[in-house]
């Protein structure tokens, strides 16, 4: 009976988390406040290893990529919800540099107030630098643990619940939505 009650409680929390992600208002961020830094794969790897976070999620996306745009609100919700619990999210745009204004507007419209990044090297070097599991398809998500070890990777669109389950597993904590305050 206790197990059933606990399962129901966890289920409600997950549902509430999902409801929050779906219904939470997007933070208001001005385009001029969006911070985007050009990076190489080596820069990303260094940030992952030096993060001091319990988990680091790296998401490769582009403004022209439909599935990337579709999953973005859920991704930002996960970032806001779990940053306070040790998650660091690195959003890396694969757009060309000329699209930087569009990248910044996209990020502002979706309430990304934390630092974001833009790919700044040739595709081959960038993809190889991220490890041999990535084919180059977008979106692609890498999930590292606190020691910088790759714990999960997938290509293609994910939902709030998928992001949450994978992140929580690496954080090693029970599902505990915090109301979205980073």
């Amino acid at each position: 009976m206790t197990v059933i009650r606990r399962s129901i409680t966890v289920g409600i929390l997950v549902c509430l988390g999902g409801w929050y992600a779906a219904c939470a208002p997007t933070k208001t961020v001005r385009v001029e406040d969006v911070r985007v830094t050009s990076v190489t794969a080596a820069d990303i790897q260094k940030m992952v290893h030096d993060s001091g976070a319990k988990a680091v999620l790296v998401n490769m996306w582009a403004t022209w990529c439909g599935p990337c745009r579709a999953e973005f609100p859920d991704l930002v919700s996960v970032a806001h919800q779990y940053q306070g619990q040790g998650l660091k999210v690195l959003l890396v745009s694969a757009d060309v540099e000329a699209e930087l204004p569009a990248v910044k507007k996209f990020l502002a419209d979706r309430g990304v107030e934390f630092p974001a990044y833009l790919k700044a090297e040739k595709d081959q070097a960038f993809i190889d630098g991220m490890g041999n599991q990535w084919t180059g398809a977008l979106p692609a998500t890498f999930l590292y643990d606190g020691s910088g070890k790759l714990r999960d990777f997938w290509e293609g669109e994910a939902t709030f619940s998928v992001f949450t389950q994978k992140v929580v597993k690496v954080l090693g904590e029970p599902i505990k939505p915090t109301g979205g305050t980073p």
Partner: protein
Amino acid sequence: MKSNSFWTLIVSLSLAGSAFGLTIGDKAPDTAVKMKNVDGKEVSIADVTGKNGTLVIFSCNHCPFAKAWQERIAAIGNSGKDKGVGVIVINSNDPTDYPEDNYAEMQKRAQKLGFTFPYVVDATSDVARAFNATRTPEAFLFDKDGKLVYHGAIDDSQDASAVKDHFLQDAITASTAGQTVANKETKFVGCGIKFRAKT
């Protein structure tokens, strides 16, 4: 430590399948599968095989990257006949969420670009799965013996005027001349193939 090793193993195993489909030297899979061409006829990879090789490109209509390379794909594809290289372009995307990838739009695109080679529908996306193709546009070049000699990008720049390395064109030139392809595999950022659900 054991836990970390376990995770590394699990991630490595789960990633191996997605990252390393066909390898250089492999034969093309699913060559007998008939796919509907924009002219209404059913065509397979085997049907287009050329005496000097076969070029299979996974592409589509909607992807901005596929669009960026579509004129170059048309040029390379249309010149294949002169080189004895059979060419087929396969659209494996599910058009449900991307109507621009439906059959009628494919017909319009092929006509607009003047394709003289088949542009076909992979109606189950299983041909892409068999190739382990993941992006558009993604090229596979097989030599006269049917062995994979090049896999990857068309060239090194989305901007046609900035291209420095013509990977696919150079591979065709080398392969049809009986020479070794210098750059056998290249990687590029592209749209993921929008696979239909497995049946």
